[in-house]
């Protein structure tokens, strides 16, 4: 089957070409860069909201992009169960658009931080983690100034198994030192109740090729592979 994925480009998204490259050239599926005003959901099986500084992060990261017509289109996909992935700025946009619970605030250190971290997989039943195992520890980089996850519904998130990734050390232990930005409960990524929408602060598109990974791993690719598997299974 021919799978079509859209990578939405907002004004000043800057990781859009990276996500496009991984989908097109590493996974070899048909992905298109779509300008936010031109996005139509009916043409696509899945959508990626990439990292960057959409609309300059003015007022608040993600808030202006959340009002884009692209988000209205994506809301249709959210409701009919198609996969929606928000990476970094994309995660911020999804929380402001209320596709996902919680909010992303400025890093506790008040500094931008770019480094490789470890994430523990907490839920492998989402559209993006079916190729992973619960308790897997993966290598993946972060690069953000506003990644501190906050929610006033922590209990519900835990009860509903909506926490998908947590920051941990190399061995998978959830520690203060392994939390790069002060996120509540070391939360790095969450999903909606249905599990078809995932937002995460780290960048899987930067961890999909061994040549650019410090340890030569490609754990990020598994997130995209999972999305493709999910789409294929849905269409059956």
């Amino acid at each position, binding site marked *: 089957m021919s799978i079509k994925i859209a990578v939405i480009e907002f004004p000043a998204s800057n990781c859009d070409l990276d996500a496009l490259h991984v989908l097109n050239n590493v996974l070899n599926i048909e992905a298109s860069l779509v300008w936010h005003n031109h996005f139509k959901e009916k043409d696509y099986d899945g959508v990626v909201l990439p990292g960057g500084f959409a609309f300059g992060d003015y007022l*608040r990261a993600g*808030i202006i992009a959340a009002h884009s017509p692209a988000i209205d289109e994506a809301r249709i996909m959210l409701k009919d169960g198609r996969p929606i992935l928000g990476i970094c700025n994309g995660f911020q946009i999804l929380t*402001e658009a209320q596709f996902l619970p919680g*909010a992303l*605030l*400025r890093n*506790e250190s*008040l500094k931008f931080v770019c480094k490789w971290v470890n994430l523990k997989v907490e839920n492998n039943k989402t559209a993006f983690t079916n190729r992973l195992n619960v308790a897997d520890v993966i290598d993946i980089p972060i690069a953000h100034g506003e990644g501190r996850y906050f929610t006033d519904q922590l209990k519900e998130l835990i009860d509903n198994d909506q926490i998908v990734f947590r920051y941990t050390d190399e061995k998978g232990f959830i520690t203060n030192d392994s939390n790069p930005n002060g996120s509540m409960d070391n939360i790095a990524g969450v999903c909606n109740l249905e599990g078809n929408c995932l937002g995460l602060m780290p960048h899987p598109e930067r961890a999909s090729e061994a040549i650019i990974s410090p340890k030569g791993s490609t754990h990020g690719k598994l997130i995209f592979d999972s999305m493709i598997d999910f789409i294929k299974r849905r269409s059956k």
Partner: protein
Amino acid sequence: MLWEVEVVLENKKAARDPVGETIKRDLLAKKGYDMVSNVRSGQYLRINIEAKNEANAKDIVEKMCNELRIFNPVTQTLTILNVKIS
């Protein structure tokens, strides 16, 4: 009538305010201003709006801030500081 509405958005207590905390702890307290007990940071908006009267101006501003999420109700509070004729 043209009104001027001043609005401040602050982080809720639970969401913490590292900017305010840092100003107090790393700048003021270290430089002898230890009589300062607390600093809150926030965003300030000054909105010029055409409205019938003061109450109307306030209403419209509150409505638009809520509807368009000019403040994030999960993490922030919205306070109208002042309304006056522009």
